[in-house]
C-alpha cells in the first residue's frame, strides 16, 4: 500500500517499516520564552509501535498535547494519513481531534471518570457514535430500536475491551475504586473504545509492577497486531520500550536527537550522552541505559 499523495506525504521510509500514518514536520512549541519543542520532525507508521523517549522535561507530553489538540503548535505541520483522508491535526482544536481524526490518548496522570463504573467509562468513550444513533437524544428518549441496537453494539465493543484488558470482573465497579494498575489498563481500554487509528499512550507502564508491566506489553502487541493501528508510546521504562517498540524517537531539551529502530537508537552515542551526560561510556550495555532511564521522574501533565 502506498501512502496517499499530499503535502504531508512521507519523503523517506519510516524506520521500523510500515505505511506512514503520522507525519510531523518542524513541530515547534513555545511557552513564552521557553522552547518546549524545537523543530521536531518524525513519522509514525500504521501497525507499529513508535516510542518517544527522553529525560524528564524533554517535551514528550507536549508533543502529545500538540497532536491531540490540547495545545496549538507555534510552528509545524502534523499530518494524519487517515484512511478517510488527510487531517491536519494542528488545525483541529480540542475535542475535534478525537472526534474527526480518531486520535485517542491516555494521560500521564490517569484521567478516568472516577465515580462512574468501568463499563460506563467505556460507553462514554463511544459518545459520538451513540449520540448520532440516539438522534441527538430524541430517538433515545422514546427508546427507538435504532438506538437500542446501537447501544447493544456499544456494549459488545465495551465487553470486547473489558475482556482484553482483563477487567470484565470489575465492570460494575466505580473506576475510582480500582487498583492503580487496573486504572491504567482501563484508560487504554477507554481510548480503544473510541476506535482510533492512532493511539497515544503517555507512560502507560508508570507505577506498574513487573507482572502488570509484562501484561501491558502483551496488550500493546495485541492491539498492534490485531487492530493494525499506530501506537505512539511515551515510556521511561527502557525494558518496555526496547522490548515492544518498532521505532524509537529520542527527545532531549525539546530537540530530536535520535530516530530509528531500537537497535540503532540503543547504540547511538548521542542517546547515551543525553541519558548519562558523559561521553566516555559509549559502549554501555543496555541494562545500564535502562537503569539511567528509570531514575527520578516527576509526574507532570497537561
Amino acid at each position: 500500500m502506498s501512502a496517499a499523495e499530499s503535502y504531508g506525504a512521507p519523503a523517506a521510509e519510516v524506520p521500523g517499516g510500515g505505511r506512514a500514518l503520522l507525519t510531523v514536520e518542524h513541530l515547534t512549541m513555545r511557552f513564552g520564552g521557553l522552547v518546549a519543542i524545537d523543530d521536531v520532525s518524525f513519522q509514525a507508521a500504521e501497525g507499529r509501535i513508535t516510542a518517544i523517549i527522553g529525560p524528564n522535561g524533554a517535551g514528550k507530553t507536549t508533543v502529545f498535547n500538540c497532536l491531540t489538540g490540547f495545545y496549538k503548535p507555534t510552528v509545524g505541520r502534523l499530518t494524519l494519513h487517515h484512511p478517510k483522508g488527510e487531517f491536519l491535526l494542528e488545525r483541529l482544536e480540542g475535542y475535534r481531534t478525537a472526534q474527526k481524526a480518531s486520535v485517542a490518548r491516555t494521560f500521564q496522570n490517569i484521567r478516568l471518570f472516577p465515580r462512574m463504573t468501568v463499563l460506563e467509562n467505556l460507553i462514554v468513550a463511544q459518545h459520538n457514535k451513540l449520540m448520532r444513533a440516539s438522534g441527538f437524544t430524541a430517538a433515545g428518549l422514546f427508546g427507538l430500536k435504532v438506538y437500542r441496537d446501537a447501544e447493544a453494539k456499544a456494549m459488545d465493543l465495551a465487553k470486547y475491551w473489558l475482556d482484553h484488558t482483563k477487567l470484565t470482573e470489575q465492570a460494575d465497579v466505580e473506576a475510582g475504586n480500582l487498583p492503580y494498575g487496573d486504572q491504567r489498563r482501563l484508560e487504554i481500554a477507554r481510548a480503544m473504545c473510541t476506535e482510533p487509528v492512532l493511539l497515544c499512550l503517555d507512560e502507560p507502564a508508570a507505577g506498574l509492577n513487573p507482572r502488570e508491566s509484562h501484561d501491558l506489553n502483551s496488550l500493546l502487541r495485541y492491539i498492534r497486531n490485531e487492530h493494525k493501528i499506530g501506537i505512539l508510546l511515551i515510556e521511561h521504562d527502557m525494558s518496555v520500550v526496547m522490548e515492544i517498540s518498532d521505532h524509537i524517537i529520542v527527545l532531549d531539551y525539546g530537540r530530536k536527537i535520535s530516530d530509528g529502530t531500537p537497535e540503532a537508537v540503543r547504540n547511538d552515542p548521542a542517546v547515551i550522552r543525553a541519558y548519562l551526560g558523559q561521553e566516555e561510556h559509549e559502549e554501555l550495555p543496555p541494562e545500564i541505559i535502562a537503569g539511567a532511564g528509570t531514575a527520578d521522574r516527576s509526574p507532570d501533565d497537561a
Partner: protein
Amino acid sequence: MAVAVAEDIVVRPLNMAALVREASITALVVFALAISLVGFQVLDVPGGLAIRTRFVDVGMVMVLAFFGRVALILLREHRPRPVLIVTPVLAAIMLVLLLSETFFGVETGSVLKQFLPFQDPVVLWGVLLVTIVLAVRSAYAHTHMNSSMTLEEREVRMDQIGAGVQRAARLLGPVLLLFAITLPFMPFADRRLLDIGILVLTYVMLGWGLNIVVGLAGLLDLGYVAFYAVGAYSFALLATQMDVSFWVALPFAGLMAGLAGVILGFPVLRLRGDYLAIVTLGFGEMVRVILLNWYSFTNGPDGISGIPRPSFFGFAEFRRNAGDTTAFHDMFGLEFASVHRIIFMFYLILGMALIVNVFTMRIRKLPIGRAWEALREDETACRSLGINPRNTKLTAFGIGAMFAGFAGSFFATRQGFISPESFTFIESAVILAIVVLGGFGSQVGVVIAAVLLIGLPEFFRDLQQYRMLAFGLAMVLIMLWRPAGLLAHREPTLRLFGRNKKPGTSS
C-alpha cells in the same frame, strides 16, 4: 456491621484549668456577639424609637454557652457520662416547664414559667432541642465508647443509606405517587393542605430541574431563579398582552427560559466551581434588576397582575359563570366549588413535576446524560474522547432552564400576579438547598428535602422567621458532615452483571 474500632482513643486526664479557660473564651465570644444582638432591642414607641436593654438575657446566653462548651469538651475528651446524666434531666425539666400551662393549669403554669431562662417560646424550644441533641450525642458516645467512625467509614455508611433509600424508592415511589394522586380526595385534605402541596411540588419540580445542572452536569448554578423568572414573565406577558391561552403559552415560556439558559451559559463555559457559582449568581441578580427597571415592558416593581388561570385543557373554565364557554362543573355535572381549580392545579404541577422526573431518569441513561456526568468528573478526559464540552454544557443549562421556565409559568398562573420580588436570590438558595440536602443526583432526596424545607415551615408558620436560620445551619452541617448531600448515592446507568449478582460468580 463492621465498624472498625479506633484503637488510638486515649482518655487523657482532664485539665480543669484548660477546660474552664476554653469554656470561658467561648462565653466571652458569645458575649461579644450577644451584647449588641440580644442586649439592646429597638422598640417602636409612640413618638419614636426606644431602646430596651436585655442584659439578663445576655447573661443567660453566656451561661448556656459556657456549659454547652463544657459538655462538648467532655464529649471530645471521651467522658460522656456527666453530660449523659445532666442533659436529660435538664431537658425533662425544661419540657415540663414549657408545657406547664397544659399540665398544671394556667395559673401555676405561668408561675412555673418564670423559672425558664428566656421569654420567647421559640428560643426556649431551641434551647431544649440543643439539650436533647447533646443528650443523644452523649448517649451515643457512651455506648460507642470504644468505637468511632472515620470520615471514610461514615461516607461508606451514608452511601449505603443513600443506596438503601434509592432501593426503597422503587417501592416507596409508587406509594408516594399514589398518596399524591389520592391526596385531594382524602378527608383531611383541606384547601390549605392542597396549597402547601402545590407549593412543595413546585419546589420539587424546580429541585429536579436544578439537579440536572448541578447534580448531573456538576455546574454549580446559583442563579437558577432567573430562568424561573424568565418563564413566569414570558408566560405572564404572553397571556396578558396577547391573550394567548395557558396551554399555548406554557411551551413557549419553557422555550424562552431554555433559550435564556443557553445564552447565559455561553459566557460561563470556561468557568468551573466557585467562579461559575459567582457569575451565575450575578446573572440571577441581573435578570431580577432588569425586570425591576424595564418598566415599559415588565411593569417594574408593580409587577403583572390579572394573569389568566388555566382552563381545563382548553375545554372548560373553572368559573361559576363561564359565559359563552363551558364551565367545568357543568361539564361534569357537579356543583360549583372553588376547590376544583385548586385540585386541578395540584394535578397539573404533579404531572409537570413527574414529567421532569421521568425525563431526568431517562436522559441519565442516554449518551447526553452520561456525557454530563463524565463532564462533571473530568472535562479534559471528555475532550480526549471527542466529546464536545460546549454543546454538552449548553444542553444541560438549556434543559435545566427550560424546566424552570415551565415551573415559572405554573407559578404565574397560580398566583395570578408576579413581580420581581418573587425571584430574589433567596429562591435560588432555597432550590439549591433542596438539591444539596437531598443529595446531588438523588431524585427521592429532592422530594424529602422539599417536604422538609418547604412543607414543614408552611405548617409551622410561627417558626417562619427562623427558617433562614435553620437553612443556614442545615447547610453548614451538611457541608461539614457530607458535602455530597444527605442521600447522595449514584446508581450506575447500566450494568454488565445484574443488580444483585455479585461480579466474580460468573466465571
